[in-house]
C-alpha cells in the first residue's frame, strides 16, 4: 500500500474521530444545559415571575448570543455563556408555564409538550445520524422561512388573530424540526466543529419546538 493511501486513510480516521468528539461534546453540553434550563424554569414558576421579567430575559439571552458568544465560543468562557443564555431562556418560561399550570389539566399539557418535544428531537437526530445525509442544502430555505415566520409573528402581535397564531406555531415546529436535521448533519459532515455553537443551535430548536407545541396543545385543549 502506498504512502498516499495510508495518509488519506489516516486523514479520514482523524476526521471521523474529530466529528465524533464534537457530537459527543454537543450532546453532553446539551443535556446539562437542558436540565439547567428546566431548573431555572421551575424556580421562575415558584417565584411567580412576570411577563416583563420574561421579556427582559429574552432580550438578555439574545444579547448574549449576538455580542458575547461569537467572541467566547472558542474558549472555556463560551460554556459559561451557554449556561447563562440557556438559564435566562429557562427563567423566561416562568409566566408561560404558570399560565398553563393554572388550567385544570395544565400539568398534563406541559408534560405532553415536554415528552412530544423529546420524541421529535430524538427521532430527528437519530434519523440524521443513521442516514448520514448532508442536509446543508436546507440552509437557505430554513433561514428564509424563519424570517417569513418572524415577520408573521410581528404582524400577529398587532393583529391578535387566533388562526395566525396557530399557523405560526405550526410553522415554527416544522422549521425548527428542519433546523435539527440541518444542525445535526452539519456536525456529522464537519460543517460545524465548535460544540458550543452546535449546542446553542440545537438548544434553540428544542426550546422553540417545546413552546410552540405547548401553544398548539393548549389550543387543542380549548
Amino acid at each position, binding site marked *: 500500500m502506498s504512502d498516499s493511501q495510508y495518509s488519506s486513510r489516516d486523514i479520514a480516521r482523524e476526521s471521523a474521530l474529530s466529528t465524533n468528539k464534537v457530537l459527543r461534546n454537543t450532546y453532553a453540553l446539551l443535556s446539562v444545559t437542558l436540565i439547567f434550563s428546566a431548573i431555572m424554569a421551575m424556580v421562575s414558576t415558584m417565584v411567580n415571575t412576570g411577563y416583563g421579567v420574561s421579556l427582559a430575559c429574552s432580550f438578555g439571552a439574545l444579547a448574549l448570543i449576538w455580542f458575547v458568544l461569537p467572541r467566547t465560543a472558542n474558549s472555556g468562557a463560551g460554556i459559561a455563556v451557554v449556561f447563562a443564555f440557556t438559564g435566562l431562556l429557562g427563567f423566561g418560561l416562568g409566566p408561560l408555564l404558570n399560565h398553563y399550570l393554572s388550567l385544570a389539566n395544565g400539568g398534563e399539557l406541559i408534560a405532553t409538550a415536554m415528552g412530544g418535544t423529546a420524541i421529535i428531537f430524538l427521532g430527528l437526530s437519530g434519523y440524521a445520524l443513521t442516514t448520514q445525509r448532508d442536509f446543508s442544502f436546507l440552509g437557505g430555505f430554513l433561514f428564509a422561512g424563519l424570517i417569513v415566520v418572524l*415577520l408573521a409573528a410581528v404582524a400577529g402581535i398587532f393583529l391578535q388573530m387566533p388562526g395566525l397564531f396557530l399557523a405560526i406555531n405550526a410553522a415554527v*415546529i416544522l422549521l425548527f424540526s428542519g433546523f435539527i436535521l440541518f444542525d445535526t448533519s452539519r456536525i456529522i459532515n464537519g460543517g460545524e466543529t465548535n460544540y458550543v455553537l452546535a449546542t446553542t443551535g440545537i438548544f434553540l430548536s428544542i426550546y422553540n419546538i417545546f413552546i410552540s407545541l405547548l401553544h398548539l396543545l393548549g389550543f387543542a385543549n380549548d
Partner: protein
Amino acid sequence: MSGLDIGYALLVVALIIFIFPAAKYWLKNSPKAEKGDWTAFLFPIALVIAFVGFLMMMVGR
C-alpha cells in the same frame, strides 16, 4: 396594545436583524439539493406533522 406587546414586537424585530446576515449567507451559499434530498427531508417532517396532529387529538378528547 400594551407596552409588553411593543416589547415583544421589538424583540422579534431584533431577532430578524440578528438572523438576517446568516440568512443572506445561506441563501447565497447553500449547496444544491441532489436527487432524493428533498424526499429525505420531507419524510421525517411528514412524521412530525402526523405526530403533532396525534398529540393534539389526544389532548382535545
